[in-house]
């Protein structure tokens, strides 16, 4: 598997396996991603009520995802770095275009119709923003000077605002997180971080009254007290918790989750799929799934640590941490720790576009690891 040098051992030769040097893939990461995706297909088969036709769609999407991963892994990070401002520019243009020409999809303006498929510019921004910020900060002082931090904050704020008014709060949150992670990894001072958090706390009431939509407010209220409204918005959280709790230590067994099959669990094949996992596979199943996620994130952070330049370090770190945020927010929402923000469980939830983005991001991660120069 991995035979690369220890982090920090500069000037020592980087040894790459065949998989890494020729195919630019990382064995451990690939195995872990594949394991989660395969498990996800099995869970979806159950969540769909043993309907193979719909499950097959997911298999096709996962396959597409792996293709995207493979393709992105072939791009040397130096090339990515050259492209970064352009990719960001295109992403911004598309976000603007979606405001103008976007067709209504699911009650929100998020799509551009390309004729043969619908494209979500917000998905591209998940990659474009960290690329841009890594490019911006890489060649300059670490930690960045205040002026550069301000510039970075503006570059984060504009696309996030555009996505938030679509309205797609979940994606906006992720895009914002991917940007802040770059700043955090670049060594942004703790004073900045604490100050920013305090500012966000102060801005929350403004957000509540002027930015959030009614349904988003309802979600927050429901999160604070689900039992208040057991048949309305609280229904999701209550039913999800019942499913998880009734799963117990070892679960009810694959295809045997009564909450899932009796359709008590809402959105059981998309955002709430973790409830199906918890009901059918129990605490053991959830623990193992989270462990594999942790392996993926850990490997990603290790790749960031091994990277040979600031651009690659920042980018790899941001990608890994954003992925973790996906898992954390989704699992927190399903288990009642966080409000419902509508984020899928990565690699498991049914759905195409975010899956492809995530896999593409891991392709970039692998590229960073496998395009390292042997001597430097």
């Amino acid at each position, binding site marked *: 598997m991995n035979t690369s040098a220890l982090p920090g051992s500069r000037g020592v030769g980087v040894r790459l396996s065949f998989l890494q040097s020729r195919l630019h893939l990382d064995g451990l990461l690939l195995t872990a991603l594949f394991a989660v995706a395969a498990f996800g297909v099995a869970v979806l088969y159950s969540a769909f009520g043993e309907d193979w036709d719909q499950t097959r769609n997911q298999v096709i999407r996962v396959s597409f995802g792996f293709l995207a991963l493979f393709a992105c892994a072939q791009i040397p990070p130096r090339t990515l770095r050259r492209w970064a401002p352009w990719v960001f520019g295109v992403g911004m243009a598309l976000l603007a275009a979606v405001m103008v020409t976007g067709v209504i999809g699911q009650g929100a303006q998020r799509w551009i119709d390309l004729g043969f498929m619908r494209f979500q510019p917000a998905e591209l921004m998940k990659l474009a923003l960290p690329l841009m910020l890594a490019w911006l900060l890489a*060649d300059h002082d670490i930690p960045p000077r205040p002026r550069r931090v301000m510039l970075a904050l503006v570059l984060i704020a504009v696309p996030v605002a555009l996505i938030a008014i679509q309205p797609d709060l979940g994606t906006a949150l992720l895009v914002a997180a991917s940007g802040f992670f770059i700043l955090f990894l670049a060594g942004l001072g703790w004073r900045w971080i604490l100050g920013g958090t305090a500012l966000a706390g102060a801005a929350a009431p403004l957000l509540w009254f002027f930015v959030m939509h009614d349904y988003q407010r309802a979600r927050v209220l429901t999160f604070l007290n689900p039992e208040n409204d057991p048949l309305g918005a609280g229904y999701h959280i209550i039913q999800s918790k019942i499913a*998880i709790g009734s799963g117990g230590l070892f679960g009810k067994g694959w295809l045997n989750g*009564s909450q899932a*099959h009796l359709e*008590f669990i809402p959105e059981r094949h998309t955002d709430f799929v973790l409830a199906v996992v918890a009901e059918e596979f129990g605490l053991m199943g959830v623990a193992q799934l989270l462990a594999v*996620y*942790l392996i993926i994130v850990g490997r990603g952070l290790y790749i960031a640590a091994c990277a040979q330049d600031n651009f690659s370090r920042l980018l790899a*770190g941001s990608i890994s941490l954003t992925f973790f945020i996906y898992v954390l927010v989704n699992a927190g929402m399903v288990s009642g*720790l966080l409000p419902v923000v509508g984020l899928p469980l990565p690699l498991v939830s049914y759905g195409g576009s975010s899956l492809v983005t995530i896999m593409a991001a891991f392709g970039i991660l692998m590229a960073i690891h496998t395009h390292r120069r042997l001597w430097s």
Partner: protein
Amino acid sequence: MSLSIRDQQQDASRIRRRIVAAGVLCIVGVAGLMTQMVRLQVVDHHHYATLSQENRIKVNPIPPSRGQILDRNGNILAENRPSYQLVATPERIPDIETMLDEVGEIIELTDAQRDGFLNRLNNSRHFEALPLRTRLDEEEVAQLAVHRHRFPGLEVDARLVRHYPQGQTGSHAVGYVGRITAQDLRRIDRSAYRGTNHIGKSGVEHAYEQVLHGEVGVERVETNAAGRVLRTLDRHPPRSGDDLILTLDIDLQEAAERALGDHRGAVVALDPDSGDILAMASQPDYDPNMFVGGMSRERFQELEDTGWQPLINRPIRGLYPPASTIKPFVGLAALEHDVIRPDTEVHCDGTYHVEGRDEPFRCWRDWGHGETDFVQGVAESCNVFFYDTAFRLGIDRMSEFLEPFGFGTPTRVDTSGERSGILPNRDWKRRALGGGWYHGETVLTGIGLGYFSTTPLQLARATAILANQGRIVEPRLVQAIRDGEAEHTTRTAASTPQERIELNDPAHWELTTEAMRAAVEHPRGTARLIGDDLDYSLAGKTGTAQVTESREDDDEKVPEHLRSHALFIGFAPAEDPEIVVVVVVENAEGGGGAAAAPVARAVTDVWVRDDPSFLEDLEAGRIDESEVEDEEDAPMELMP
């Protein structure tokens, strides 16, 4: 800016410190998640397991009630009737065999029904309610209600089932619904069909599925541990499907079907003004109610085994050569192109020679018609006149003229499964068969044979254009869609285009009508059988399309499926047409004049005069068909 090695080293270690910090935060995050999971799944497991056991709140889909189908006068063609069925959720039943035995003591449960249920059990999804008995009567429902405490997991399900009160009448036009199959599932939005078992399979039931279906509703219900509904908590009601008001007149439809009798074939009646399809009969027919409850394999095989394809909607899917019914159109083309004049005469001695062919084409009347002009040629259906006319007109001008009448293209009627037929010309032949065009083929096309094929509806549309003196109509089956919720809102479904076929000399329309009237009213007209005691004017044209190439002298000896098809097109009253009728009788015991024309007259009589006496005479066999000579359109060989 270029950085020294030293700076790079520093940067790298700074970033690495942050990476380590992030890693620690990740582990803290997962630990937090796991704490919550342990709380839910271990500490409070018992609590949630109990809640799950008696999960009280369940979201059920409520299927919408399907829109009704009515005829133009408000008679119901398709409606919904309540029906009860017993469904069982296997996961909730302690012992299935015992349950089946005990239920069998209360209501009738045949071995076949038991086996069917056990069979479905093996192929079912988890926690799916499976039908155990359908069509429970009131008594059985009451019995089950008394004993329901003994049977956890059993429920009596009341639902609306499609019913076709007219039975076989109009069955092809209306179509039928059947159980949703795996094939249907691939093309519908599953969530829109939650709770719905049936979907339109043919006719307008299929073509207007979207309109008829409505929108599924949702209700939240409180259930007990056995999953039985205790009360409804809240409800988002379904939106009923919209009703369809058809252009059909069910009385005329019935008259058309009775007029056809046991003969296989098709009748189409159109209102030439609006394109409304007043009647659309297809024989043999079937009872659409058979499909609703699900048809057994044997029953379906029985239908198939007749060999005459009763499920085929002949007016739109049956392809027949137009035969002599094309003659008025060809004649009109020739008049327009100045190939003939109203007084142009052709001498018919019973044969017609085409260059390059040894065998002559023949007229159906061996000794010929003598000197024949256009009116006489149509009235007496003289082949030689039209051989000659078609030959001089040429295939290009002929097919170009016929095209706007709708030959060779679908009528785009608003129901499913229409076929387009063939209007032969050089282009078509090169594409479909390859090779050049022969004179003999032009001559045959001129009498509606050879490659020529049309559906009865296409012929009816072309005839309507003739009756309208050029105004084009589009046939339609649905007149209006009525909102299923607010019954009063009505809107028309289709509008008739105001395009026309313009002639250089509009008088040619009248001449053609005159020729078609002569076919019915003149003592030597081929449809004179129906011209007796006619108190309104009827313009018509007969046609007979031979099925085999060899001609037998005695019809009795020809096997049924090789006998000729009899055709008739007509409209009435000729001066101000109210109805266009097209009749096709497959493998008839006589030509168009004897077998098809009386069917058409029976229909026009009912529509124009509201007089069923001709129909009754026809049914009673009082119409003497022997007095008309059998025209035969096809000369010896169909193809050169």
